[in-house]
């Protein structure tokens, strides 16, 4: 807090500043801090800082200073002034601000140390880490501003949705079944039946059973169907045999009735009633 103009002189050889920076530096030392703080907006402004790095950047940019040639002494003093004001205004002062104050004080004290002659390895500038952080943060801050400027949903554009016509119905995808699953399932059912042992499953010609279904399907429940309608000449003899066997099986199982009005008349069949 007790910077005299003198430390500035120590700083000069280190950074070989542009005259402008020096002029600025001098002006800053002479002028009171309220040059940078519009009194009415003070509280508002203080509350808007996003942390110590933000405040430091503000101080630097406000005075058109160069981060690379960070004038640590004047910046430290101004920073502490702000921190004092924040304390006075009883703003909730995050610990980070005090941490930064300590860092600044440390950098400052290292800057004030006399330089060693044997600085072959170019002793690292005590400000280097702080400068790196400030530049890094400034890029992030700028990136955030750029993101804020991007066109944004519900501010710069609105997402469009049309309604579906009422005839649109969700499609239900039915499960796949493989032939193998089907066969294995039949086998399993048969095994169970064997275990139950009370049900005798007889050998049956599958094609006959299929034909039985077919016949039941084509004959109406009430009307009579001509026997000849059941046969398809294109199937040949084998087809006739299968159909005939199916009809016999259906009769045997009492599923159909066969009616013949008189010998050699047309045979009709109907569902059993």
């Amino acid at each position, binding site marked *: 807090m007790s910077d005299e103009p003198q430390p500035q002189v120590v700083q000069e050889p280190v950074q070989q500043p542009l005259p402008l920076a020096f002029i600025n530096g001098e002006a800053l030392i002479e002028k009171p801090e309220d040059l940078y703080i519009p009194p009415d907006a003070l509280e508002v402004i203080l509350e808007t800082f996003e942390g110590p790095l933000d405040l430091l950047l503000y101080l630097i940019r406000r005075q058109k200073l160069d981060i690379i040639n960070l004038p640590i002494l004047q910046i430290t003093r101004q920073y502490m002034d702000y921190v004092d004001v924040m304390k006075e205004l009883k703003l909730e002062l995050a610990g980070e601000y005090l941490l930064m104050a300590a860092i600044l004080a440390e950098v400052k004290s290292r800057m004030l140390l006399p330089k060693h002659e044997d600085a072959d390895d170019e002793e690292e500038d005590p400000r280097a880490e702080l400068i790196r952080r400030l530049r890094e943060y400034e890029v992030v801050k700028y990136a955030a501003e750029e993101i804020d400027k991007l066109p944004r949903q519900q501010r710069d554009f609105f997402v469009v949705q049309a309604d579906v016509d009422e005839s649109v119905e969700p*499609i239900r995808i039915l499960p796949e079944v493989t032939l193998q699953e089907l066969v294995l399932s039949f086998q399993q059912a048969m095994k169970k039946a064997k275990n139950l042992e009370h049900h005798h499953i007889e050998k049956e010609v599958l094609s006959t059973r299929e034909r039985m279904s077919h016949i039941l399907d084509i004959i109406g429940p009430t009307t009579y169907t001509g026997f000849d309608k059941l046969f398809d000449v294109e199937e040949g003899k084998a087809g006739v045999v299968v159909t005939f066997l199916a009809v016999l099986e259906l009769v045997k199982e009492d599923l159909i009735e066969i009616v013949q009005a008189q010998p050699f008349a047309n045979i009709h069949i109907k569902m059993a009633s």
Partner: protein
Amino acid sequence: MAARISDEQLKQLVEAAIFVADKPLSKERLFDTVLSDLKVSKKRLDKALESLRLDYLPRGVQLVKVASGYRFQSNDSLSPWLGRLWQEHAPRYSRAMLETLALIAYRQPITRGEIEDVRGVAVSSNIVKTMLEREWVKVVGHKEVPGRPALYATTPQFLNYFGLSSLSELPSIESLESAVLDDRSDEPLSFEAAAEKTPSAADELPNPIDMKENQLH
């Protein structure tokens, strides 16, 4: 206020407003909201709406007027495809379902009672309903026994699904037993294992034997 706006801009604004609104937009609401600071007569709005309606006639969505206002909705001709956006997978078929289906396929025409006799457990109505809905089985008649139970048989859709031209192409149980049981005699015929197979696995089944010998037991 009441700024001017060109006919083109008016159309764009009304179009976008109807599209972005979460419910149909009436003309009143258009005037109260997006058009409130603009010099637009009722007649001009009508013209813009009609022009929009015509613009969209050849498109995939249409401007329609419903009770509460204007909205865009999809062409009804596209509905069969659009439904796929909300497609849902029905759960896998249960073992009971598959055994029932298999019994209907191999033992048709068959009653529910007969299926229950073989399986030793009741067949739920749901199972039968699902099969009927999928049009894999149908009722082909009623057995003349007390209660006249329905007789179930498979359908041409069933054959199509499994790529069969007739039931005689169903693998015979005899050939299957020798092929499957011998090779995997100590591996249980778990349904889960079968279910994981790709549908093409059916191709690897032994060739169906000749129709005349194609017997079940």
